[in-house]
């Protein structure tokens, strides 16, 4: 009897959890309404798969819904990211003017904290997490993107420090109801979701972006590998980056 109960429970939708609605039609459907608020989500993919575009569209849609949103740039200057986003119709400059959407350079934070980029100590990790926590608290940020976790990991060096950073960051920001999106860059064809293979273990969710060859042409794909706190599809979907935003449709299975 008890076995039967637990089997049934495993297929039941977890109790209603507030959602961070991505505003991307197909993705919210895949996630059964959105990312559970406070989750730390790894957005994984090789170059050109749409990680930054997806993440910023989630921020923009959040800001349009009234949730303050932040982007921390660690790989290229925030100003250049903003410039690139101006080519998208969904991007609204007014959100930046109104401080609903803010962009930061992580380098500036490193300099203010006096961090040695070559290798962070555990004290440096505490200082960095504290600085990001301050930003979230003072600006009442409800969704944040760090682009990329891979760049930070190169300064963390060891799996232990990566684990320490992610756990502390996730706990700290979750208390403010802030959902965290960490971008992870991997080589094409990689079988793991991060360079060090640690981040995916710690993250509450993994959204994997990639390419698939279908009948002689390349398609962009997206699939949610895991997401704590919600039932979700684990199927692979096809994704397109358009000036009007991301579009997601099912991958036709016949012939795969």
């Amino acid at each position, binding site marked *: 009897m008890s076995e039967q109960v637990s089997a049934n429970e495993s297929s039941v939708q977890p109790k209603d959890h507030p959602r961070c609605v991505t505003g991307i039609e197909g993705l919210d459907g895949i996630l059964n309404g959105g990312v559970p608020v406070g989750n730390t989500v790894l957005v994984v993919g090789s170059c050109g798969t749409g990680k930054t575009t997806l993440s910023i569209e989630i921020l923009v849609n959040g800001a349009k819904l009234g949730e303050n949103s932040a982007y921390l740039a660690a790989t290229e200057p925030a100003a250049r990211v903003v410039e690139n986003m101006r080519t998208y119709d969904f991007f609204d400059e007014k959100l930046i003017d109104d401080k609903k959407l803010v962009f930061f350079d992580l380098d500036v934070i490193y300099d203010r904290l006096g961090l040695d980029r070559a290798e962070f100590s555990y004290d440096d990790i505490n200082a960095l997490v504290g600085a990001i926590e301050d930003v979230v608290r003072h600006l009442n940020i409800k969704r944040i993107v760090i682009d990329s976790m891979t760049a930070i990991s190169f300064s963390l060096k060891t799996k232990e420090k990566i684990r320490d950073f992610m756990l502390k960051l996730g706990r700290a920001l979750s208390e403010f109801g802030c959902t965290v999106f960490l971008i992870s860059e991997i080589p094409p064809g990689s079988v793991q979701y991060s360079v060090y293979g640690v981040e995916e273990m710690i993250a509450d969710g993994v959204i994997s972006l990639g390419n698939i060859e*279908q009948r002689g042409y390349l398609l962009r794909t997206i699939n949610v590998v895991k997401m704590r706190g919600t039932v979700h599809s684990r199927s692979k979907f*096809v994704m397109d980056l*358009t000036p009007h935003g991301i579009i997601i449709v*099912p991958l*036709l299975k*016949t012939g795969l």
Partner: protein
Amino acid sequence: MPEVDEIANSICEKLSSMPERAAVTLVTDVNGYFSALKGVIQHANNSNIACIYIAATIPSNVVIDQMSQSGFNLDSLYFVDCISFIVGSPRDAVNKTLYIESPTMLENIMLKVQAWLKRMKEGRKMVFLDSINTLSVHNDQKILSEFLHYLINSLRVKDISTIILSVEGQTPEDLENILKLVCDDTIDAKGGEAQAESGNSNEPSNGNP
């Protein structure tokens, strides 16, 4: 006033009597092909419906030329063109056409239809696939069945009607069966006045209890 013949008028009349989110197979013969196109576009014009036209048989610029010459208003016509690229037809970057490299790129057809829907204003919309026969030349029947099943139902849930053009005698039997399964009605416009016959009706069509 557009130049339309009796078949086109009859098709237009039948389409106008269909429920808003109906999926319809429009069966024609080779000789009635252009009349069928005119009937569909006239229906879109008369009922003020924005139409996404999936051009797989002839390039969109040929359709535009033909229909413009016949006096149709094409302001509310948006194209997904999956034939111009492979036949080397001229492509205009500024008109209302999204191009696909090949009719085998079925996922891209779905993406481009969704892309138009995202850009279009409020109001009635429909999707016209010209034609299932051409797609069957380039695609395996099973994957085409999967495509049709997804396309029609994804539009139906958004209250968007679908018209699938099928040329008599050129549609494989398996596909005909899928069309019967997923479409609400069939309009038979072969060589004369259009006749509507109710298929696997998910909702009753007007005048066909």
